[in-house]
C-alpha cells in the first residue's frame, strides 16, 4: 500500500521549458500536442523460444513482447474457453527509478490495463482456444518486458502485445480415441480484432498525446483509451491524482479513434512485413 515511492525527478529548467512550450501548443521535442513519437515495430525478435514476438520502440521507450502458447486445464466456470494472460514487467534495466522485486502498484496497473485491452476487445476468440471441453485448453501467455522507459508504457506495451499476438502461432492437435495429441504442425491464433491503445496526458489545461517520461511525471492526469477497428471503445483507464472534465473526455474519445486507426495501420504493416 505504498503512497510515496522513488519518483522520477524532473529538474526545474526542464519543467519550465515544457510549460512554456505548451503555452505555445508545442513540445520540448518539437512535437505538436497530439503527435506521437516515432514508432518502430519489429517482429520475430525472439523466434527461438516463443510462438510470437515483437519489439516496439516508441521514441526512446522500448518494450519486448513474447507469446508462449501452452495447454492447461480450463477454469471450472468456463470449461469450453481457453485462457489468455497478459503480464508486463518493468525491468530494472529500464530506469533508475525501478527497483528489482515484486511488481509495485504501477506495474500491476500496467499489466492489468494491457490485459483488459486485449480481453475486452475480444481480440482472441477464447472459445477457439478450447481443445477438449472441461479437460484441456490452450493457455496464451503474453509477457512484455520494459527495456527502456521514456514514458507512455501503456501504449508501447499494448502495441507490442498486440503485434506479438498477431504474429503468433500455436500447435495443432488431434483427438483419437478420446486422447489428445498435440502435433508439430502450427496454426495461427484465433484473432478477431486489433485493439489499439492511445494515451493522453494533461499538463495545466493542455491535453497532449503520447507523453514522454518527463511529461508524464508533470501531468496531473493521464487517460488511456482502447478502440477496435469498428470504432468501438473497449477499455479505458484514467491514472494520476487529477482529473479531466466531461468536455475533455468527449474530445479525447474522438481523437482516440482517429489516432488509433493510424496506429493500427502501422501494426498491420509490421505484421505483414514480418509474415
Amino acid at each position, binding site marked *: 500500500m505504498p503512497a510515496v515511492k522513488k519518483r522520477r525527478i524532473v529538474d526545474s529548467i526542464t519543467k519550465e521549458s515544457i510549460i512554456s512550450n505548451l503555452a505555445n501548443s508545442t513540445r520540448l521535442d518539437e512535437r505538436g500536442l497530439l503527435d506521437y513519437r516515432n514508432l518502430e515495430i519489429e517482429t520475430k525478435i525472439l523466434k527461438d523460444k516463443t510462438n510470437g514476438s515483437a519489439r516496439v520502440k516508441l521514441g526512446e521507450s522500448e518494450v519486448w513482447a513474447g507469446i508462449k502458447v501452452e495447454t492447461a486445464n480450463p477454469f471450472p466456470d468456463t470449461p469450453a474457453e481457453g485462457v489468455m494472460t497478459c503480464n508486463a514487467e518493468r525491468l530494472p534495466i529500464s530506469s533508475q527509478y525501478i527497483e528489482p522485486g515484486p511488481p509495485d*502498484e504501477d506495474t500491476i496497473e500496467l499489466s492489468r490495463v494491457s490485459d483488459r485491452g486485449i480481453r475486452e476487445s475480444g481480440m482472441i476468440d477464447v472459445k477457439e482456444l478450447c481443445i477438449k471441453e472441461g479437460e484441456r485448453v490452450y493457455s496464451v501467455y503474453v509477457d512484455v518486458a520494459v527495456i527502456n522507459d521514456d514514458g507512455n508504457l501503456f501504449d508501447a506495451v499494448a502495441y507490442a502485445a498486440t503485434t506479438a499476438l498477431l504474429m503468433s502461432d500455436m500447435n495443432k492437435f488431434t483427438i483419437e480415441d478420446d486422447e489428445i495429441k498435440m502435433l508439430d504442425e502450427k496454426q495461427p491464433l484465433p484473432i478477431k480484432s486489433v485493439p489499439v491503445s492511445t494515451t493522453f496526458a494533461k499538463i495545466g489545461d493542455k491535453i497532449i498525446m503520447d507523453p514522454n517520461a518527463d511529461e508524464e511525471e508533470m501531468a496531473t492526469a493521464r487517460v488511456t483509451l482502447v478502440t477496435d477497428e469498428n470504432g468501438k*471503445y473497449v477499455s479505458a483507464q484514467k491514472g494520476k491524482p487529477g482529473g479531466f472534465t466531461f468536455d475533455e473526455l468527449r474530445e479525447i474519445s474522438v481523437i482516440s479513434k482517429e489516432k488509433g486507426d493510424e496506429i493500427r495501420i502501422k501494426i498491420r504493416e509490421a505484421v505483414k512485413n514480418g509474415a
Partner: protein
Amino acid sequence: MSKNNIERISGRAPDELRNVSIKAGVIKNADGSALIEFGKNKIMAAVFGPKEVHPKHMMVSDRAIIKCRYHMMPFSTDTRKRPNISRREIEISKVIREALQPAIIMEDYPRTAIEIYIEILQSDGGSRCAAINAASTALADAGINMRDLVAACAAGKVNGQVVLDVDDTEDKTGEADMPIALLPNTGLITLFQLDGNLSKEEFDKALELGKTGCDKLYKLQRDALSEKYFNDKNGNKEE
C-alpha cells in the same frame, strides 16, 4: 430518458440507481468512517489521520501523503475469496486513491499521513464506486479539509441499452461498464475506467448518465454528514 426502454432485470428505469444508504461515524476507533449500502454492496470506510508517517522516509515536507487500501473480506464474494491481497485489489486501491486525492487539501497537513481503509463486507456490481462514496464521506467525517466531496457511480450497457448503475446480476449479461468519480464543484472526473464495448454515441450517453448518478450520490453523502452532525435528514443546513 425513461421511455421506450427495454425492461431491466431489476425492474429499474435505465437512469435509476439501486437503493443506497450512507451512514457516517460508524466506527468508534476511526477518526472518520462511513458505512454504505449500495444495492447488495455493504462497504465500510475508515479514515485515520493526519498522523505520523511510517516509515519516516515516506514523509513529504510540504503536504500529507495519502494511503488507501481497498480490501475484500473472504465472505464478501459469490465464491470465497482467498485472504491474500489480489492484484485486482491493488489496482483498485490505486485508482480509488487517485480519485480521492484531488479533493483533499494535502498542503494543510505537511509531514503527515492520511490513511483510508475500505472493507468490502458484501460485494455487488459497482463496489469501487460505492467504496469511493463511503471513503469520501469518511474523510469529511474525519474533519479532513477538502475542496469537495467525491461522488462516484457507474454507467454501463446491458442488452444493448445504456443504463445507470449496473448490478452484479446485470453484469453477467452486460456489455460494458464505465465507473466514474466526480468532484461536482470543479467538474473534474477523477476516476474513469471502461471495460466492454461502446459506440461513440453510447460512450457519450454513458458519460452523461454517469454524471447524473454522481450528482445523486453527492446529495446522499451530504445527507449522511448532515444527519450525523445536525441530525437533519434533508442535509440542507449550512455549516
